[in-house]
């Protein structure tokens, strides 16, 4: 398989022994790929390697079979939306969006089209600092898309917005990207954002690629404990507790809270805490070996202090 954007064994070595990579990824034309990982996992470095702001110490990057590994950012034709947008404060909205366009008779029309795409038609003469955070984000997107880049890169695109705005902006962002049909790589540390926005997710940890796959694949079939616990809530069971839930041998069991339920038999424990979230409740149960785990169940399924038995409807054996 050969993707539109190919990352082959790309590597970046920082001082004091920190190494990012080698990472290999193939991204299809029009695909949206999320780079998901905790802070310090190297996801931002990966994005900056793609943009050309960092030079790789090994490996290669190619777009449509053209090697761009050592092409400077200005010639790479990758659009980028920065975490804090990096809008030029001394230029107005129109000048920002037109910055990457050549001087041609239809420049004004292109700016207008880019602004219309992000639902900001007629905002050309506005000052950047007069805009709300959400509007600034959309201007940054319009500016990145206006020169018709080959690949769109987004660095934590929603982290600067308040939570109420985040979900709506996420859907707008997805809509614009799919309408343009551009190949996109974005960085996030939030699983929900990655699930909602990405066609595929690459999970990074300590500079290494842990697993790549569609959201449900990562959730249901994580390849290791890190992916299992980082992507979604997870209870980890070992030893007796794992055997009580049906594990055979020495394997570690990972069970999502919604895959546990109270039953007549199974793993015994005492309910220590109940966290009500509306439609359901999380019950924190302490097992006989003092291991604690979460069960997602009907709000009135158990009481604090009650002795319960828990069984699993689906387990992930690692």
């Amino acid at each position, binding site marked *: 398989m050969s993707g539109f954007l190919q990352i082959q064994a790309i590597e970046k070595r920082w001082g004091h022994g920190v190494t990012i990579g080698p990472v290999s990824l193939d991204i299809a034309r029009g695909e949206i790929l999320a780079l998901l990982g905790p802070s310090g996992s190297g996801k931002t470095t990966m994005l900056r390697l793609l*943009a050309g702001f960092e030079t790789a110490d090994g490996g290669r990057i190619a777009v449509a079979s053209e090697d761009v590994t050592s092409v400077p950012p200005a010639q790479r034709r990758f659009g980028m939306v920065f975490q*804090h947008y990096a809008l*030029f404060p001394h230029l107005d909205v129109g000048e920002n969006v037109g910055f990457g366009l050549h001087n041609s008779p239809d420049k004004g029309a292109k700016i207008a089209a880019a602004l219309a795409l992000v639902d900001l038609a007629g905002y050309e003469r506005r000052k950047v600092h007069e805009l709300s955070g959400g509007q600034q984000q959309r201007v940054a997107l319009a500016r*990145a898309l206006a*020169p018709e880049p080959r690949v769109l890169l987004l660095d934590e695109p929603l982290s600067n917005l308040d939570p109420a705005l985040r979900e709506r902006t996420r859907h707008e962002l997805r809509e614009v990207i799919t309408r343009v049909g551009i190949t996109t790589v974005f960085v996030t540390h939030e699983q929900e954002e990655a699930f909602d926005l990405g066609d595929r997710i690459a999970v990074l940890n300590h500079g290494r690629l842990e697993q790549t796959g569609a959201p449900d694949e990562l959730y249901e079939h994580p390849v290791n404990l890190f992916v299992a616990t980082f992507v979604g809530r997870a209870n980890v069971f070992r030893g007796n507790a794992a055997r009580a839930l049906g594990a055979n041998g020495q394997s570690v069991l990972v069970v999502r809270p919604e895959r546990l339920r109270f039953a007549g038999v199974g793993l015994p424990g005492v309910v220590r805490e109940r966290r009500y979230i509306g439609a359901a409740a999380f019950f924190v149960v302490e097992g006989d070996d003092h291991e604690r785990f979460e069960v997602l169940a009907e709000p009135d399924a158990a009481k604090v202090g009650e002795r319960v038995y828990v069984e699993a409807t689906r387990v992930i054996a690692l």
Partner: protein
Amino acid sequence: MTVRPKRSDIAAAALTLLLAWLVIYPIFVVAADAAHPSALRAFLTRSGEWAALWASVWISLVSVILAAAIGIPLAFLFEWFDFPGRKTLGALIALPVVLPPLVGVIAFLFLYGESGFVARAIQSLLHLQNAPWRLQGAVAILLVHAYSMYVYFYLFTRAGLAKLDVSMLEAAQALGADRRATLWRVIVPLLRPSLVGAAILTFMTSLGSFSAPYIFGGGFRVMTTQIVATKLNGDLPLAMVETVALALVAVAGLVILRRTEGDDILVALGKGIAPRPRPIRRASVRWLAAGAGWALAVLLLLPHLTLGLVSLVPYGAWTTEVLPPVINLDNYRRLFSEAERLRPMWNSLWMAAVSTAVAVVIALVGGWLVVRRRVALRRAIEALLVLPWALPGTVFAIALAITFSVHAPLQLRLVLVGTAVILPLAYLVRALPLTGRGVLAAYRQLDPSLEEAAASLGAGRWRTLARVTLPQLRPGLAAGASLAFVAALGDIVASIVLYTYETRPVSIEILSSLRLSETGVAAAFGVVLMLVSAVVLGVGARR
């Protein structure tokens, strides 16, 4: 894999060498040559030398105390109390700091000097035979210093007070501290970095002060005037020893004062809300405060108004009268119609412009290397850019005069003294800290992702520089450049050591006009300097 030196590292090495050659090398040459046994003996044994050195130190210390005594209360008055005219006055009384020292000094001379406005008025009022006082010696110098340097304390303290978090004062009160306790246990410790900053600036400025001791000193010598006098007497070895002694005092003073600075704790605590100025409730007190404020402003601006008046009096027309009998524009006409008088003006303008332009380019390259490329030599570059600020101007003037009066290309020494190059070079050295600080501070505040955004949108290096970096650096750059330009325009410290008749700047022309008793022409030059400086600084401060 072979490690190829990066282009930025080569540029950094080149810049470091250039700066070292300009800033450090001349000092080394002087220090090496100063190790001359007979000159050393002369310095150590002559009482006049020690007296001058000691005078420099105590004049500077007393200047700090006087400037603090005026500046700090003023800052509290204007920052904490509201009265009619607060804003206008608050800006007006910061004015003396932006004027060339020489202009302030001659303005003072025309107002308070023995044949000045005030002395004449009192003389005629009391029918005295002679002038009621002679403005001379240490007292005169201290007066001028206090008058021009309180601004440092005023501005620094106001800035410190504005950064103060009102909730911290409220917390102190909630914990039971009364006003006095709040002042001494909360406000003063928080203001300490600002106060020490002002003290350092005042100390360094008065240590390097030349025009005030030169014009008012008479027989009273401080080190700067002593050095220039020794140099003019032709005793170069002794001048070098004196220069090194002054440099050592400056460095020692800086180190000692820096020690008392403490950590800038305000930064760590983040920004708070500054206390709002309190309106003064009692009408009588409010008007008293306003009246005192206005009276003070007039007092502080009076020298410059006097300068304007003197510049309008033609040669020889004002002898014994209290008010000038004739007023016209004769002096200005002579200034702009006589080629020989116009020349210093052009000299000062082009030399200041060239030195500022070069200092700006060096600062930009330095800022890029230090902040953006984070080259290995960044500390060296930054230190070299700031160093000329830490040493009195006279030290550099003598160092350049000695280093560049010998033709020895292998030692990187050329004969530049006597050419048109030496003064702009001296101004450049003095300009480096001003443009360097402005550009470095602006570069540090500049979000690097702005330049990356430009690159990702296809802009090359030069387009990014022109359309993104420079517009963003503009405020810091303009502020530094305008200060550097004004400093060069009014410079006397380096000029008096290095000028030639062909390249004489305005300051030298003012001195020679004074010597010929052409006070009107000298004042007119002063007014022109003042106006050009004000315009340049006004443009530089525009956002």
